[in-house]
């Protein structure tokens, strides 16, 4: 009974809004909303999504209006933020963090005439698409450079949360570091945050104390770069954003998330009325994953190899997870020449052979 009432009111709300949305489509600009997990000035993840938003504004000018809300906690508050954005007349809403998945699904049900795009999740609906980037492709190049640069043979890794995306990154970086330097060892610290400069700096310092002379990070602030600069002779890589202010040392290269082409494409689809739900996973080849300039702190031959690796991944000639690869427990994962399928990659919950320690759970 109660459920039926709820459904009815939900539908009534939706119908009312549908009317609103249609009324607006006559010559009104398309309104694109963005929900951010961090501040737009984080210099990393949220910064790049916001760059994507600005690119949309630049591309379409008066034909588009964008709104955003930053620092939105994942959970109940996110559902309210997304709902309010939909109520304010947004036609397309990008929710840019994994933790927004359930709230986005819930709001998408209530607003069938607004389209939603959720980053890095896996739940889709008729008006809810998901998109993500194959960051592990960039990690392969990072691993290659890191394996060459390290002299202590200890590479530190600041991991955020034990989710498949992060685990994939660790595995990809490790495999390619190991390939050029069989003695390499990974020390991994789980920070349990995407953005917390104090925690990230602590993690970086702890890794440096443990002998790491290259630090990879899957968190979004530049605090590890600052810690490495202070320590001296420690190499780092920009994460999510170029972090070029720390080049040429300690930042020797970076993985850049380039959301702009995708956002422009999807907003265009809404304008043209051709938007359809999908689940995409784009990499270096599509331009969603960029590799920041490799500085002169990296020997020329290593740089050349890294760029060649990037080109072959971009062209689809080489897959970073190509067998033979064993799992951490020694069992065979991929046979010689076999490449990983997306399903396994998307739900990856194991380390590859050679990585010490356990994935926390």
């Amino acid at each position: 009974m109660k459920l039926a009432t709820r459904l009815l009111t939900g539908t009534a709300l939706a119908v009312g809004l549908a009317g609103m949305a249609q009324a607006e489509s006559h010559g009104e600009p398309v309104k694109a909303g963005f929900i951010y997990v961090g501040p737009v000035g984080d210099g990393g993840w949220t910064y790049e999504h916001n760059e994507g938003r600005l690119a949309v504004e630049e591309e379409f000018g008066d034909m588009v209006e964008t709104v955003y809300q930053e620092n939105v906690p994942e959970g109940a508050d996110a559902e309210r933020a997304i709902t309010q954005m939909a109520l304010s007349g947004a036609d397309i809403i990008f929710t840019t963090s994994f933790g927004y998945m359930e709230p986005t699904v819930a709001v998408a049900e209530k607003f069938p005439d607004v389209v939603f795009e959720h980053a890095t999740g896996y739940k889709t609906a008729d008006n809810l698409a998901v998109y993500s980037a194959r960051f592990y492709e960039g990690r392969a190049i990072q691993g290659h450079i890191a394996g060459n640069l390290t002299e202590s043979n200890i590479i530190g890794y600041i991991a955020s949360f034990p989710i498949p995306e992060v685990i994939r990154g660790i595995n990809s970086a490790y495999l390619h570091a190991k390939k050029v330097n069989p003695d390499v060892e990974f020390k991994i610290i789980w920070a349990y945050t995407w953005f917390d400069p104090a925690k990230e700096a602590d993690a970086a310092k702890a890794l440096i104390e443990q002998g790491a002379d290259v630090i990879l990070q899957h968190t979004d602030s530049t605090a590890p770069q600052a810690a490495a600069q202070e320590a001296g002779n420690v190499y780092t890589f920009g994460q999510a954003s170029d972090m070029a202010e720390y080049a040429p040392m300690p930042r020797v290269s970076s993985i850049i998330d380039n959301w702009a082409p995708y956002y422009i494409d999807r907003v265009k689809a809404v304008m043209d009325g051709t938007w359809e739900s999908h689940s995409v996973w784009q990499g270096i080849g599509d331009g969603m994953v960029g590799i920041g300039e490799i500085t002169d702190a990296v020997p020329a031959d290593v740089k050349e190899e890294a760029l060649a690796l990037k080109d072959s991944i971009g062209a689809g000639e080489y897959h970073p997870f190509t067998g033979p690869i064993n799992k951490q427990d020694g069992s065979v994962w991929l046979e010689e020449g076999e490449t990983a399928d997306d399903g396994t990659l998307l739900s990856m919950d194991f380390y590859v052979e050679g990585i010490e320690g356990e994935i926390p759970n």
Partner: protein
Amino acid sequence: MSLIRLEKRPAPSRLLSGLTPILAVIATMFAGGIMFAALGFSPFEAIRIIFWDPLFDPQFGPYSRPQLLVKAGPLILIATGLALGFRAGIWNIGAEGQYIMGAIVGAGAGLAFYPSESFLIFPFMVLAGAFGGWAWAMIPAILKTRFGTNEILVSLMLVYVAENILASVSSGLLRNPDGMGFPGSRNLRRDFPAASNTEIFADTGMHWGVVAAFIAVILAYVLMSRHKMGFSIRLAGEAPRAARFAGVSPARLIIFCLGTAGALAGLAGLFEVSGPAGQISIDFNTGYGFTAIIVAFLGRLHPVGILLAGLLMALTYIGGELAQLMLGMPAAAIQLFQGMLLFFLLAMDVFANYRVRIGTPEIAK
């Protein structure tokens, strides 16, 4: 000798104690308005969006009004419990941890029976949630009564322990087996109706946690004004030595105050995880346990004051979100605005406790 002096009143002015929250809100509007203007936003529009639109805007009001209850419910529930201890001079700073543990134990108790449809599951979860928060608060309580440890430090440190337990169960024990390896439990609200805390009346925001908050306010009021325990609490806070002579047992008081606050915080966590949040996840907690400390003081540690303070706090949150959305105001400006509110409240308190004297002091004859 200075011309303006502060002279302590023999007792805080009752009139001013009641008025200061209102004066603080007005002062915040002024100072905040200046800040908004400095940032290039229209101060009148910003203040209107923060304080008026969530309630009365035809576009957002129908959605925002119920959301006020959703946001205020846990704040009021937690603050009511905390205020009991604060009145007695028992400083439980760890409500955030008790809130987390209530959610974990409560959600765990429900998930153990997935996918049962028994109507007993939700009441059982409520008990388990209260127990989780209570048990977590008993750690600082027993350490204090047995070993004299400082409850401020112990309860605060246990927040970080609870956060790590939360991260652990999200990606281990309570992880959704159908979740593709991602952390986070099953969604109680969407996938497990028997364990979900739904709205009692559709689209009112009135879920069981809000009901529990109102009941807690009433019970706390009765306790403080009519019950011997309330008298002991007040006596212990205002005159500890007299309380000792009157036979008030400090240990009993500590166990009672921390236990009640813990149980209420645990309940808040359970109602949140089974309702608005829907699932146990790594970032499930969003600081209600800490914000509730502000709410408790904003409400003058009085149950009815806390009720109003919780609603006001919720209004600034939701209005602040709207201001971000409608004006493109940065989140930090809103946080500053909320900080001003607390600052002015504390500043205004000076006038309730002290008299402003102009001129040289009179000499007592």
